[in-house]
């Protein structure tokens, strides 16, 4: 398996209706680790994640992966801020990415059942996805994202609105994925979570990378007053 990492974003810019939402952003994504993307509401975290993943039309710049774009897309996965529920059972939701790749129904479902077990949804296999609770939906989305063993996984606030226990469970799954070699790039508002998980932090402010550092450096000695205020929990204008 050739590697899509390290990767690099150069001059990445997203504009809508003449307004620049993100960029220009230059960013290196190293081969390993877990990057936490932080920043105030509206800073452009969601937009940046989507742009990196290739879901946004770029006004300028590009993302360079370690392999051709088509193959690189297949080696990525994305967990959306609000999980997308296919109108199918949980197991068929999780199996769906494999089905798209041409894996047979029986095998795809067997592997999906295994993943459902790993995220704690073994009891919910045949339930329609729509009846799942918020935390269960996130876990299902996570299993669906991980089933193709992506080389990099983007997550957009996967634990927003979840209670502490669900949050810990999802963090445990992410740690496992990371240990299994998946690069993780994730937006969160939860500073405790960022401290627990991050190896690197990217602080986004007004659509630009305001600060990018190792987690230790970022939390111990933020280089910008905005990041410092953000970590303290102050309002960043």
């Amino acid at each position: 398996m050739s590697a899509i990492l390290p990767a690099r974003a150069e001059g990445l810019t997203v504009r809508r209706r003449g307004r620049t939402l993100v960029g220009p952003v230059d960013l290196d994504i190293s081969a390993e680790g877990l990057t936490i993307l932080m920043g105030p509401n509206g800073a452009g975290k969601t937009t940046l994640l989507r742009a990196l993943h290739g879901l946004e039309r770029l006004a300028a710049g590009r993302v360079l992966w370690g392999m051709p774009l088509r193959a690189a897309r297949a080696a990525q996965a994305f967990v959306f801020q609000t999980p997308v529920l296919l109108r199918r059972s949980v197991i068929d939701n999780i199996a769906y990415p494999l089905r798209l790749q041409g894996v047979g129904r029986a095998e795809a479902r067997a592997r999906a059942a295994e993943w459902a077990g790993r995220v704690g949804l073994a009891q919910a296999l045949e339930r329609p996805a729509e009846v799942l609770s918020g935390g269960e939906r996130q876990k299902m989305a996570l299993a669906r994202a991980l089933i193709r063993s992506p080389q990099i996984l983007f997550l957009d606030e996967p634990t927003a609105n979840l209670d502490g226990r669900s949050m810990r469970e999802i963090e445990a799954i992410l740690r496992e994925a990371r240990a299994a070699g998946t690069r993780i790039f994730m937006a969160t508002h939860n500073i405790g979570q960022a401290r627990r998980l991050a190896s690197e932090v990217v602080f986004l402010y007004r659509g630009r990378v305001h600060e990018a550092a190792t987690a230790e450096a970022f939390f111990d000695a933020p280089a910008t007053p905005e990041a410092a205020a953000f970590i303290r929990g102050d309002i960043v204008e």
Partner: protein
Amino acid sequence: MWEIWQGIIAAARLLVTLDADLVEITLRSLQVTLTAVAIGSAIALPLGAWLAVQRFRWRRAVIATLNALMGLPPVVVGLVVYLLLSRSGPFGALGLIFTPTAMIIAQVIIVVPLIASIAHQAIRELWSDYHDLLLSLGASKRQRIATLIWDARRALLTAGLAGFGRAIGEVGAIMIVGGNIDHATRVLTTAIALETSKGDFALALGLGFVLIGLALLVNYAIHALSRTEREGRW
């Protein structure tokens, strides 16, 4: 008044005894309409899905046209199909005029805009839910359409039933292209029209009961389907 009561009693007798003419006409109606709805769905469902998924320059115009075609007067469809299939028409050599095939062609033209339009609405909604995920997973255009059609299948079944409801009760077009020939192209609606004008209310009413029964059945089915859909039982 007495005549009508007599008619109703005679109609009931025809139904209970499974009168041969009545059964034959009913079966032909079902055969023509079910074939037309099957062919129409095979065209309209992918068309509706494609219109929801594909962005192209004339998309809005096509959708507007489709919606306008829903209101197409069947008689006009019948006239156009007649002109195309009649002996002196461009497809006259096929010898299709006054055959069940001609009736099926006319009904397909009538139901495709209706089914496609309902399908398009349902799938467009689903597509806005699924869009990001399917793009993220790299689903091909074919896979997107297949996924949407499968996951919207209840709504699409409803669309097919609506098409059936429209086609089974339609008289203008099939009268023109079928000709209402006994034992060949006579169906429920054309037979009712004929028997009524002849004053034979027994058969007309008997056929009418069958037609009403079918229409009710279809509407119950649509109702049941949309209810299970709302309740989120897929």
